[in-house]
């Protein structure tokens, strides 16, 4: 019974933890401009993140080594150093987006300007990193993030013509958009679903929670059930936008527009639920990205790290996270639009994907680390297919960004 509860908790946390500011914004933007015609990308991204999150969790559980330690061991100091620089840049950019997302969500609940919420949000994130136990932090933000189920409820309450909605699922470029923009947003959605920080976080989290090979079955179940359901929530955000905002001719450029379909469907109560969900999802992702900056830097340089230690026993790790948060606040203080930052962060995530995913795949096949737990053939086949997709997306991202003027 207790074990069943633990599994249920893990799955619920995985659902709530799947979504972050990048998913929220990108899905809403895409839904309002392309309807459901890009939903297949979310499906592809979910399968990819399942494969690689499971693999990095497995490597962490069996070898006790987290992702960036392995990247350093396999690539050597130079290539791993470049990888570190690129990964840190993308992760900090994502952190900026998440902290901005918390502030925007709090503005929805208070109508106090989001610029005033930024320092408050960053301080709250730091306090949790400083004081709250890893498991509690994970479970609370994950469970509150489940409130985003409100988007799926809203889709049902809007009572769409299901046949028509399903017909939109076919991948096709809408008449008023060009193919370049379509593929640009496809890459953005893919990057939002597969953000590299999730892999750092997942493997380091496995070490934090002291996973062993025995916990693998639970972790596999959490990922395989939780992430697809999280992906379904992503798609329902796009569906909400497609049902209400697209017919009205609204292009999403603000977090507040996400509440309009929900208000129409479920009224004040559902809007309140959604706002709680957005705050929890962005807050959880801000914690994860801040931790990921600390994890990757500490693991590359061999510093003592982890929330399971006292802050004084992982001093440089905590200092790195504090600095990352200070940078995030400083960037947001320039009055940059958090939504624009989010849109860029998901595309640069796509660019950085191969840097993280290739070393994981290599090590998951190394018997020295993995013993008899090396990848099976089916797993390697899927992972290799994804690696090709990831490389194509990474190479195409920047040219498409320039050609379409970032999806303009």
């Amino acid at each position: 019974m207790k074990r069943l509860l633990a599994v249920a908790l893990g799955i619920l946390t995985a659902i709530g933890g799947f979504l972050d500011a990048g998913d929220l914004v990108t899905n809403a933007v895409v839904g309002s401009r392309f309807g459901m015609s890009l939903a297949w990308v979310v499906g592809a991204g979910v399968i990819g993140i399942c494969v690689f999150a499971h693999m990095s969790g497995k490597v962490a559980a069996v070898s006790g080594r987290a992702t960036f330690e392995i990247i350093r061991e396999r690539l050597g100091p130079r290539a791993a150093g470049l990888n570190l620089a690129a990964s840190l840049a993308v992760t900090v950019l994502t952190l900026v987006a998440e902290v901005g997302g918390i502030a925007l969500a709090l503005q929805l609940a208070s109508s106090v300007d989001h610029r005033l919420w930024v320092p408050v949000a960053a301080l709250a994130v730091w306090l949790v990193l400083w004081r709250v136990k890893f498991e509690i932090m994970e479970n609370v933000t994950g469970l509150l993030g489940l409130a985003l189920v409100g988007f799926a409820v809203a889709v049902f309450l809007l009572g769409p013509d299901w046949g028509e909605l399903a017909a939109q699922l076919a991948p096709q470029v809408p008449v008023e958009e060009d193919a370049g923009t379509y593929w640009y947003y496809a890459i953005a959605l893919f990057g939002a679903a597969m953000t590299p920080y999730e892999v750092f976080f997942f493997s380091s989290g496995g070490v934090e929670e002291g996973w062993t090979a025995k916990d693998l079955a639970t972790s596999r179940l959490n990922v395989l059930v939780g992430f697809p359901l999280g992906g379904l929530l992503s798609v329902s955000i796009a569906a909400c936008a497609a049902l209400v905002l697209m017919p009205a001719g609204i292009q999403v450029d603000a977090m507040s527009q996400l509440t309009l379909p929900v208000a129409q469907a479920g009224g004040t109560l559902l809007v309140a639920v959604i706002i709680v969900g957005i705050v929890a999802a962005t807050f959880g992702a801000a914690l994860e990205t801040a931790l990921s900056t600390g994890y990757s830097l500490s693991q590359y340089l061999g510093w003592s790290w982890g929330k399971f230690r006292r802050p004084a026993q992982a001093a440089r790790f905590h200092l790195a996270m504090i600095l990352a948060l200070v940078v995030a606040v400083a960037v947001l203080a320039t009055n940059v639009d958090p939504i624009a930052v989010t849109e860029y962060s998901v595309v640069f995530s796509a660019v950085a994907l191969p840097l993280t995913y290739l070393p994981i795949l290599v090590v998951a096949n190394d018997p020295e680390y993995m013993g008899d737990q090396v990848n099976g053939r089916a797993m390697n086949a899927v992972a290799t297919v994804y690696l090709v997709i990831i490389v194509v997306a990474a190479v195409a991202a920047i040219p498409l960004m320039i050609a379409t003027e970032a999806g303009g």
Partner: protein
Amino acid sequence: MTGAAPLLPEPRQPGRVLDARLHLLDRQVLDVDSVPVGTLDDLELGPSGPGAAAGSPRADDPPLDGTTTVVVTALLSGPVLGTRVFGGRPPASRWHRVLWRHVTDVGTAVRLANRGDDLDLTWTERWVRDHVVGRLPGGRHDPDAGP
């Protein structure tokens, strides 16, 4: 070790064969309590046998001619990483050494017999702890002890 090229075929050594690049370099170094102390950034090699005292090599040491057996005398970490990335050679006095005799195990990580806090190598950690993190309220709070 494959660190130096011998003129004669190397005799078979008893015990485990380690490849310096594959099994040692860039591994995590953990202390006796499994706390990371650093990454194995480089190795210091020296001649084996009597007369070759452990310690830093000096400029007036006789050059190695390929017939001398070379052994790993110390693990290097810290600023020496810069030379791995950018090349060059810092003065030997700047290296942070961990003597090879402290190594207890080489697996997916290199384990040491001493405590990390006793090593020169971790001075930055101690500096940040004493001047920044330890001074913030709650900095020495044990996460498992509850709020």
